[in-house]
């Protein structure tokens, strides 16, 4: 197929709060191709595409579509130019139906009544054409992630886009759904679309993309075709020279040694169930054991009870039935405060909303959770001198960019906020770490830093409960992997039996559903 350049972006610059997110970036998209936009977190890939989709205004630069310069001040204009985007966090109205979500914002044939027959027929035709099976009258909040993604894709197709941007589309998909997505992408290219595939996963890019463009720290690094690309080349491009690949956890093959000879059980859950305030059973008869020094991974599609499991272990929620034991002590009804005093550390999944105090100072943030324990507090009075000394130490050790302990939390950039939380989590000597998607939002060197810290603490006997939606991460550092589906543990695999597709099957509840 003869390929022409249909879209170009020249010399794009964008600064956010003193951070240069895009630095003279060049971008080119050809017809009928799948272009991979590759880079670690914070590399600028999503920012660049948000500029293209009209969600961000670039400080300078130009966009050329089919040879003509255009401007895209808002998403409405992007759509008008035939550019659509599927975001990492789906932009859907949970209590609307699939049909309403797709037609929202478009003009309909009967705007003053509720008659949507014409639109429904049109969309059903689209579904057939692109091989997307979906019930248009279902409510979004009842649908699984893979199906919700199809709705996002349909939204774009319904608006007749020629260019579709997908931002980290495989984040919430099991391997089987990833394969289905790739098939859909191939059909779309055959039907004349061009796809921009944003990802940080090497494997995917080499699998599905025709060309690959790598960004790092807001700058172009390299652009090449799949033929010319190789693992090492792309890794180097993504992380640069600063990182010692051989000593890294992610890229070196030196696995850690954890033998499952008898060690003391740190955490034991026996038949734990949790019914929430809406009377839904979110945890269903969970039993598991974690030994000292073990990294126990929990896989599962988002929303299958992972957060509830983390919160029950930490004492934020109390199990409705069953028992939670720490060493041999029953802690089922203990509070979070008591558990933290025992040496529990929690890295919550949603770190901005659950882990950081924007309106308080950096010092306040660094001692959050430990504020009532020595050396920070004694007899109900806070020892600010100790707090400031410890804060200054942490700022140095974890390279947090800030003016000091009294700096307002809101002044920190996103990356430094993450560093504060990593500093807080790893500055304690802990017996149990509950980590939920700990590396989400981190660039590759920071991810590696977290893994190294987990390994180090594991050496001293810390047990880790690692809940993650990133299968690669689980396969990399876990000693065992349990799979959660609808609040149940549907399988626990030892390291020798780690298999991506097997885990994917369990994650999708294949064994649980009666087909």
């Amino acid at each position, binding site marked *: 197929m003869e390929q022409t350049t249909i879209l170009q972006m020249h010399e794009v610059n964008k600064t*956010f709060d003193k951070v240069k997110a895009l630095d003279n970036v060049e971008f080119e998209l050809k017809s009928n191709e799948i272009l991979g936009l590759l880079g670690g977190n914070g590399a600028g890939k999503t920012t660049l595409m948000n500029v293209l*989709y009209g*969600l*961000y*205004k670039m400080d300078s630069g130009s966009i050329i579509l089919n040879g003509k310069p255009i401007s895209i001040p*808002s*998403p*409405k204009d992007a*759509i008008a130019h035939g550019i659509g*985007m599927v*975001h990492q*966090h789906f*932009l*859907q*109205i*949970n*209590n*609307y139906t699939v049909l*309403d979500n797709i*037609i*929202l*914002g478009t*003009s*309909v044939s009967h*705007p*003053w*009544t*509720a008659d949507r027959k014409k639109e429904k027929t049109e969309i059903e035709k689209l579904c057939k054409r692109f091989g997307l099976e979906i019930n248009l009258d279902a409510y979004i909040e009842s649908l699984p992630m893979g199906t919700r993604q199809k709705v996002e894709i349909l*939204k774009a197709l319904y608006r007749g886009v020629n260019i579709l941007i997908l931002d980290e589309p495989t984040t919430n998909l099991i391997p089987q759904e990833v394969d289905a997505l790739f098939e859909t992408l191939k059909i779309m290219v055959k039907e004349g679309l061009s796809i921009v595939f944003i990802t940080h996963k090497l494997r995917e890019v080499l699998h599905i993309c025709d060309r690959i463009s790598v960004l790092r720290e807001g700058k172009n690094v390299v652009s090449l075709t799949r033929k010319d690309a190789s693992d090492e080349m792309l890794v180097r491009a993504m992380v640069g020279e600063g990182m010692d690949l051989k000593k890294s956890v992610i890229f070196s093959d030196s696995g850690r040694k954890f033998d499952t000879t008898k060690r003391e059980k740190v955490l034991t859950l026996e038949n734990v169930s949790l019914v929430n305030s809406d009377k839904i059973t979110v945890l269903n008869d969970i039993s598991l054991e974690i030994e000292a020094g073990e990294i126990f991974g929990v896989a599962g599609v988002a929303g299958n009870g992972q957060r509830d499991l983390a919160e029950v272990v930490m004492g934020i929620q109390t199990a409705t039935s069953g028992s939670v034991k720490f060493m041999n002590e029953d802690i089922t009804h203990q509070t979070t405060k008591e558990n933290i005093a025992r040496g529990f550390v929690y890295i919550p999944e949603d*770190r*901005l909303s659950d882990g950081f105090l924007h309106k308080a100072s950096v010092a306040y943030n660094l001692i959050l959770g430990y504020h009532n324990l020595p050396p920070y507090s004694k007899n109900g009075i806070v020892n600010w001198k100790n707090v400031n000394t410890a804060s200054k130490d942490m700022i140095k050790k974890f390279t947090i960019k800030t003016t000091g302990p009294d700096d307002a939390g809101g002044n920190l950039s*996103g990356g430094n*906020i*993450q560093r504060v939380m990593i500093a807080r989590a790893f500055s304690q000597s802990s017996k149990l770490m509950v980590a939920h998607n700990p590396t*989400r*939002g981190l660039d590759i060197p920071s991810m590696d830093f977290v893994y190294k810290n987990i390994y180090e603490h594991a050496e001293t006997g810390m047990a880790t409960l690692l809940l993650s939606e990133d299968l690669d991460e689980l396969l990399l550092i876990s000693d065992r992997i349990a799979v959660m589906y609808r609040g149940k543990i549907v399988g626990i695999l030892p390291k020798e039996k780690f298999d991506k597709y097997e885990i994917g099957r369990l994650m999708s509840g294949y064994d649980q559903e009666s087909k």
Partner: protein
Amino acid sequence: MTGIATFLVEFLKLTFLSMVPFVLAGQGTMLGGRTGVFNVAQEGIMLTGASVGFLVGYTSGSVFVGAVAAMLVGGLFGLILSYFTTTLKMDQFVVGLALFFVGTGLSTLLPKLVLGITLTPPLIPTLKNIPIPLLSEIPVLGPILFNQNILVYVSVLLSILLWYLLFKTNLGLRLRSVGENPKAADSLGISVNRYRYLTSIIGGMLIGLAGAYLPMVYTGTFTELMTKGRGWIVIALTFFGGWSPLVILLGSIFFAGIEVLSYRMQVGGSVIPFQFLNMLPYIGTIIIMIFTFGKSRVPAFLGQNYDRERRTL
């Protein structure tokens, strides 16, 4: 008709008369809330609407002109609220409270400036009832439902119109999406700002009119702080009504009923000291809130400002 029946008819007639401020202000609050703007300035806007409505009605000689003036002032408050929250992105509660102060102070200040200090308060003619031919002849229901002033009819029709608009039209689909997920709406080309400004201004107009109703129908004049907390009750009412026009209409009838009941019990002579009867509407509101808070469906992004360029991790 027997004594009890007469009492009931009178009671219901009065209730329908009294529901109007609640309905108008409630729908005004609901509209803004549906796009995510949580107005807490109702008490101040209603007071200014009452004050301005009365003063303009008195000086111009036309109650209608007074009502329009009240709506314009209410709309102005809505515009200011929207500007400070939607465009300047200031905290909605704080701005609402500030407007409440300004509205309250203004409502007391204006009569002093326009009329000076008077011994006997000047009066405007109150709204007359408009009986609907034929329908008002029906026994029992006739006098209750079909022999009321024009704003009673407007309130009911408005509620039905808003329900249809919000849930049966494309416009309503878009409007509601702004409050449910502004980022999603924005990404589909729906102007979050435009809908927020629109609902704030129209909402403010309704709230201003609700305030003007008090001098226009109840007393014929403006007295300081005459809303007596109705503005705050309206906020509870909107939660109770699940931010839904028809349920808000029902809830307004219910709250008006409590108000009328406490008044009737005082007039009718009761063992309970009248001060405690006066407390009924407020206590009733608290009890309603106990049963409905947390259970009502609230627009997901109510009270939160939207900034397109704000980055989330």
